[in-house]
Structures are given as structure tokens and as C-alpha cells.
């Protein structure tokens, strides 16, 4: 790689600028830092990582070759396998990996200050997340676009394949529960928010009917009209909430919203896809891309100041938002912005079937993940522009800080984050809500932060409530889309598993089998959702770590698969690119899992929590939120289920790590390459054409 002097100078400059920005962030004590430093540090890191590390991966690790036929060139069919322009495919891939995850995790992690989260987002994406997406995409391209599960079966055997599938199904269940919980937390007793979400259903129905019967090809104009109607619904929601009579129609408690969400999830996944599921997906896709671009612009224009300190005292594990110390819990709290196992499923889905040439996998696999990571950085900025006192008032559970603005402000100020009761009431009023207390889950915090940024660009104070509900709608909408689609995926997986025992169950055309499998899927995530909603600590406290463990567990599976493939390609000398992040994620998920089960602190350990309730039960006492002996028993039963699930996650990780190590060892002893790639036979292909 001969480089010219100007190039060397430019890259040295980028490196110096990035380091200087990080130094400003890290060395700052007591003063507020401008978000510009955070953005600069992130962009310089991404530029250097992309220019050098991803090139190393493409050339020295994967050996991507422009002349080697991709699946799209091998068997083009104009539908599934289509050689697609790089920019177009980047958009497709980014839209498929971007979701609520990178927005929520960093907001929760902000309780430790912005610095720990920033560092993990940057280091994690460069060495783990983007590497995983890039490698899985490239391996799938060399295997005719096969899915992760198929590839694991092919390279590591049927046993590893089955274990990985169990892992995927269980992550799906916990993922849907946590996402559901975020919506419920944001909408509880918020008639404005609830109205706008309800309004998406008739809008989606209208779009679905138009798209089916009037003009299917007009999907873009239909989506544009849908987005316009949604903005109208946000405005109308404000009017609805302002009138006490209509406000009462749309005011619901968290448990009733949870039950409605389950009913909705069931219906959406058994109804024809064109009616609700697909149109809602179109709406959320455009809203998502638009909002992400808008947020980037908003930050660039307003250059907000970060009020959150670089590091808070909650790195010791006593934080009110989620319990547990910096290691390992920070590394599982921020999943999607750094490394997300879920992306391995997307990277082995439709994208590999549309790649024009192998080297483009670098921009699409590695590049799209860097972009996703930047979304996480923006979420962290949005959370940090709030006054820390307001941040903690919104995210701390009432059991820890009290239920009135006076109590909350006293507790939070006592922690060293001064905030007056009047400021809390005024903030709630500004965003058009009666209260902003106990709104854990990330979405409302992000919404207030985004409302601050957006209203700084457009509309000022007058539009703040509109922007707040816009942000809530935007998050809720794509969470609902994930719930629809995820419930369907879980249902297909359940049908597939049980089909091995009862063949009739596998027929996806069978209405009875569909209903039973869907009910099982909804019941699975519904159980954890309801448990979270009725948890006195707000649920996010308990469930978000479980979700993080599950997501990082899947990443550990995907990365251990990548390590095995590199060994089987006889590239073991560079296999550390996958082996090191695999080991790190293995350590994080197993430590976090063990702490969630065995920690003596009831806020962290399920066993300690159950023991506290059992002791009280034996003494005949009741502990909140349980109001009866039966409810006390239910809390203990929930803990048992959580312990079982965590143990299952840990067993899956350990099994996959051992199976992976054995497969790598076998590959080392082989003389030749044993990876099962589609051969590079461009000359044969040319003859066919």
C-alpha cells in the first residue's frame, strides 16, 4: 500500500483531531462540554476505522475479490437475486438494521455519564459490531446468500445449528417484551401519545387497502400521504388531550396498555400482511430515516451543550435507571450501537443476495454499522442535553425517588443533581404532559432531548410539545413494527420446531396451527411484558439487562461462527479479528448472567430478590407491589422464570463457545481448507452466459 505524502498528512490530521476531541471529553471536569467534540471524536474514529481497519479486513482477512461472482451474478432472477447499486443497497441495509435499540441503550447508559457510553460505542463498533456485520455479510455472499442458522449448520454441524436457533427464538421473546415495555412506559396516562399511536392503525389500514386494490405500484406516494396524515394526527392529539372529556377516552394505565398491545400483536400477525403489517412498516421506515437525518441536522445546527457530567458516581452499580456496575452492565446495556447480534440475522438475509461485487460488502457491512453507531452517539447527545436532574427524575422508579415532584426533586438533588419541583412541572407542561416522572425506558427521555434540539431549529418553545410527541410516535411506530414482524418470525419458528413432533403444525396455511403458534409467541413476550409493567422498580431495571444479555449472546454466537470459518479458511493467523470480540462478549454475557442470577443485591440478583419475598411471605408480610399472598407468590414465580431464562442464555453461550473451539481445533489439524464456500468459477459462469 504505497501512500502519497498528502494522504499521509490528511490521515495524520484526522487522527490528531480525533484524539484531541476525545481528550477534551475525557479531561473535562465540572464544566459543560459542547456536543461538537463528541461528534468530532466519533466521526474521526469512524473515518480512520473505515479507511484502515475495514480495508485490512477486506484484503488480508477475507480476501474479497471483485472478479469473484456474487449470488446476484450467479443466479440473477430480477426478484430476490438482483445486482444492486451500492448506494441503493446501503440504504436498504441501513434501514433494516436501524431500529429502536441504538436509541434506547445509550439513553439508559447516560446514568453513568456520557464518557463510558461514548467509549464503548466507539471501541465496540470498530472492533466488534461492524466486524461482525461485515464478516457475516461476506460469508453469506460466499455461500449463496444463506442465512446465519443455515451457515452455522453447514460449517459447525446440526447440533450447533439447533442450539443457535433456540438462542434466536429466546432473544426474540425477550426483545419483544422489552420493546413493548418501552411503548407502555411512554404511553401510560398520556392521552396525547396514546391517541397518535391509535391513529396509526386506521392510517395503516387505509394505506393497506389502497396498496392492495387501488394502485399497488404507488407505494411511495401512498407512504408520503401516510406520513402527512401522521403529522396531522400528532396535532390532533394535542387537541384531544386538551379537552378533559376526550382526554379521558385515551388515558390508560400501564397494565391495560400491555394487554391491548398483546391483543394487537396477535391480530397484526395473523391478519394478511398487506392490511396492517406492511403499510405500518413503510410508514416507520420513512419516519425513521427522516428523523435520523433530522436529528443529525438539528445537532449540527444547534451544537447543544452536554449538561450530563462525563462520569457520574453511578458507575459503582447503584444507579436508579438500571442496576449493576460498569463492568459488565454497561457493555450489555448499550448493545445495538456497538455490537448487535440481531444484525447478523439481517446481514445474512436479503442484502447478500443483492450485492454487485464482493468488495462492496465493505461499505455496506462495515459502513452501515458505523452509521448505526453514529445514531447511538446522537441518542447519547440527546440524553445528555437534558439537565441531569431532569434526566434522573424521568428515569428513576418511584420506589427509589418517590412519586411527587417535591419528593423526586428532593431525592435527585440529594444525589448531587440539583433540580427544583417547579422545573419538573414546567418541563412536563412544555412537552404537553401532566407529568414526566417515572418514565423509564429511554423513549420519553430521548423525546424530551430531541424536542429540545428540534425546537431549537424550528418553532422554539411553541413547538416543543409537538416535537416531543413526534419523537414518541416515531419510536413507538417502529417498535410496533418490530413487534408485528417479530411475533410473526417467532410464530414461524415455533411452527418449525413443533413441526418436528406434530407435522400438521408446520403447515403455515393451517389457520388453527397459525393461531396456536401466534398465541404461544404473544404469550411468551406478553408474560415478560406484564411482569415488567407491574414491577415496582419499573421493569426496565430488570428486563433491559436480560435483553442486552440475549442480544450480546447472539453476537457472541455469530462472532464465534466467524472465527470458526476463518480457521476453516486456513486464515487462523488473522482469526483474532473475530476471536477477540467473541471472547470479550462471552466474558460480558456470562458475568452479567451470573450476576443477574447470584448477586446478593435484590435489585440485581433474581435469587436474592426471590429470597426477600419468600422471607416476607414466611413472616406473613406483604411487599410492594404485591397486594395479596397470591401476588407475592407470583413475584417469586417470575423470579424463577427469569433465572431459568438467564441460565438458558448462559448454557447457549457456553455450548456455542465450546462447539466453536472444537471446530476451530479440528480445522487447525486439517491440511487443507475446509470452509464450504461456493467455488470461484467465474470462467464457467461466463461460458454459461
Amino acid at each position, binding site marked *: 500500500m504505497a501512500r502519497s505524502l498528502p494522504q499521509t498528512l490528511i490521515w495524520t490530521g484526522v487522527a490528531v483531531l480525533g484524539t484531541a476531541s476525545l481528550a477534551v471529553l475525557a479531561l473535562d471536569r465540572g464544566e459543560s462540554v459542547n456536543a461538537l467534540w463528541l461528534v468530532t471524536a466519533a466521526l474521526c474514529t469512524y473515518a480512520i476505522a473505515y479507511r484502515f481497519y475495514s480495508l485490512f479486513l477486506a484484503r488480508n482477512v477475507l480476501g474479497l475479490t471483485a472478479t469473484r461472482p456474487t449470488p446476484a451474478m450467479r443466479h440473477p432472477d430480477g*426478484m430476490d437475486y438482483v445486482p444492486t447499486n451500492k*448506494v441503493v443497497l446501503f*440504504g436498504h441495509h441501513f434501514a433494516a438494521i436501524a431500529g429502536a435499540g441504538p436509541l434506547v441503550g445509550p439513553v439508559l447508559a447516560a446514568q453513568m455519564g456520557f464518557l463510558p457510553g461514548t467509549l464503548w460505542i466507539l471501541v465496540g463498533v470498530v472492533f466488534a459490531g461492524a466486524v461482525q456485520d461485515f464478516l457475516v455479510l461476506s460469508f453469506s455472499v460466499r455461500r449463496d446468500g444463506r442465512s446465519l442458522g443455515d451457515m452455522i449448520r453447514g460449517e459447525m454441524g446440526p447440533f450447533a445449528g439447533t442450539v443457535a436457533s433456540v438462542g434466536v427464538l429466546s432473544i426474540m421473546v425477550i426483545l419483544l417484551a422489552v420493546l413493548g415495555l418501552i411503548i407502555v412506559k411512554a404511553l401510560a396516562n398520556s392521552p396525547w401519545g396514546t391517541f397518535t399511536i391509535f391513529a396509526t392503525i386506521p392510517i395503516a389500514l387505509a394505506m393497506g387497502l389502497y396498496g392492495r386494490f387501488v394502485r399497488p405500484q404507488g407505494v411511495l406516494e401512498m407512504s408520503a400521504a401516510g406520513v402527512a396524515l401522521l403529522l396531522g394526527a400528532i396535532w390532533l392529539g394535542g387537541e384531544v388531550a386538551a379537552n378533559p372529556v376526550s382526554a379521558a377516552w385515551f388515558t390508560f394505565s400501564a397494565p391495560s396498555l400491555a394487554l391491548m398491545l398483546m391483543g394487537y400483536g396477535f391480530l397484526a400477525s395473523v391478519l394478511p*400482511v398487506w392490511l396492517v403489517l406492511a403499510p405500518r412498516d413503510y410508514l416507520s421506515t420513512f419516519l425513521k*430515516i427522516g428523523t435520523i437525518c433530522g436529528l443529525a441536522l438539528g445537532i449540527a445546527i444547534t451544537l447543544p451543550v452536554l449538561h450530563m457530567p462525563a462520569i457520574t458516581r453511578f458507575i459503582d452499580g447503584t444507579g436508579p435507571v438500571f442496576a449493576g456496575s460498569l463492568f459488565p452492565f454497561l457493555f450489555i446495556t448499550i448493545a445495538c450501537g456497538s455490537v448487535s447480534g440481531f444484525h447478523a440475522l439481517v446481514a445474512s438475509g*436479503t442484502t447478500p443476495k443483492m450485492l454487485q461485487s464482493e468488495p462492496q460488502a465493505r461499505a455496506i457491512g462495515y459502513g452501515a454499522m458505523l452509521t448505526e453507531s453514529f445514531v447511538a452517539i446522537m441518542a447519547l447527545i440527546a440524553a445528555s442535553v437534558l439537565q441531569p436532574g431532569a434526566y434522573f427524575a424521568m428515569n428513576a422508579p418511584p420506589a427509589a425517588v418517590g412519586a411527587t415532584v417535591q419528593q423526586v426533586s428532593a431525592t435527585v438533588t440529594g444525589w448531587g443533581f440539583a433540580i427544583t419541583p417547579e422545573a419538573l412541572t414546567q418541563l412536563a407542561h412544555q412537552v404537553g404532559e401532566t407529568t414526566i416522572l417515572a418514565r423509564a425506558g429511554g423513549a420519553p427521555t430521548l423525546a424530551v432531548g430531541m424536542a429540545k434540539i428540534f425546537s431549537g431549529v424550528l418553532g422554539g418553545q411553541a413547538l416543543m410539545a409537538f416535537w416531543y410527541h413526534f419523537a414518541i410516535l416515531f419510536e413507538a411506530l417502529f417498535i410496533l413494527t418490530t413487534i408485528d414482524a417479530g411475533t410473526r418470525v417467532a410464530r414461524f419458528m415455533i411452527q418449525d420446531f413443533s413441526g418436528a413432533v406434530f407435522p400438521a403444525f408446520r403447515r403455515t396455511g393451517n389457520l388453527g396451527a397459525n393461531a396456536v403458534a401466534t398465541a404461544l409467541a404473544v404469550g411468551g413476550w406478553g408474560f415478560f411484558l406484564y411482569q415488567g409493567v407491574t414491577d415496582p422498580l419499573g421493569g426496565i431495571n430488570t428486563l433491559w439487562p436480560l435483553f442486552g444479555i440475549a442480544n450480546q449472546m447472539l453476537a457472541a454466537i455469530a462472532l464465534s461462527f466467524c472465527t470458526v470459518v476463518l480457521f476453516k479458511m486456513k486464515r487462523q493467523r488473522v482469526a483474532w479479528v473475530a476471536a477477540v470480540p467473541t471472547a470479550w462478549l462471552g466474558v460480558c454475557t456470562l458475568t452479567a448472567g451470573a450476576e443477574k442470577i447470584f448477586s446478593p443485591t435484590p435489585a440485581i440478583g433474581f435469587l436474592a430478590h426471590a429470597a426477600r419475598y419468600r422471607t416476607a411471605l414466611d413472616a406473613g408480610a406483604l411487599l410492594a407491589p404485591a397486594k395479596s399472598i397470591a401476588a407475592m407468590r407470583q413475584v417469586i414465580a417470575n423470579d424463577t422464570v427469569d433465572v431459568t431464562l438467564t441460565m438458558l442464555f448462559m448454557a447457549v453461550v457456553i455450548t456455542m463457545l465450546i462447539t466453536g473451539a472444537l471446530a476451530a481445533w479440528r480445522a487447525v489439524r486439517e491440511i487443507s481448507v475446509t470452509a464450504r464456500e461456493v467455488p470461484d468459477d467465474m470462467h464457467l459462469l461466463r461460458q454459461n452466459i
Partner: protein
Amino acid sequence: MICTCFGKTFDTRILGDAARLMLGVPAYDAYVAHLAARHPKLEPLSRDEFFLNRQQARFGQSGLRCC
């Protein structure tokens, strides 16, 4: 329309293609061109049929997205 951006020329139609592919619908023109070149005897689906076919294919089985 052909535009120039940072010294590179591109067809603005790719913006529409990009938006449609985000919704899971690949380029219709490429599909028709493919059939004409490789399977000239097959009658291509109409634009509407093509959209409905792709919609069903995307959401019918899995339709996987990230968190």
C-alpha cells in the same frame, strides 16, 4: 435526470430505487430487463403484480428487522 455531485454523475432515478428497496421492492426495470435478456418467452408481471409479489415475499415468511 442525470445529476453531477462531487464530480460523479448519477441518475436521480436511483433515489426512487433506494426508497423502494428500503420497503423491500427491487427495481422493476431491472426485473423486466432481466426477463427480456434471459427468459424472452416469459410474460413479465405488471408493475402492480410485481409490487404485490415482493410484498408477500418480504413479509410472508420472515421480514426480519433489527431491534
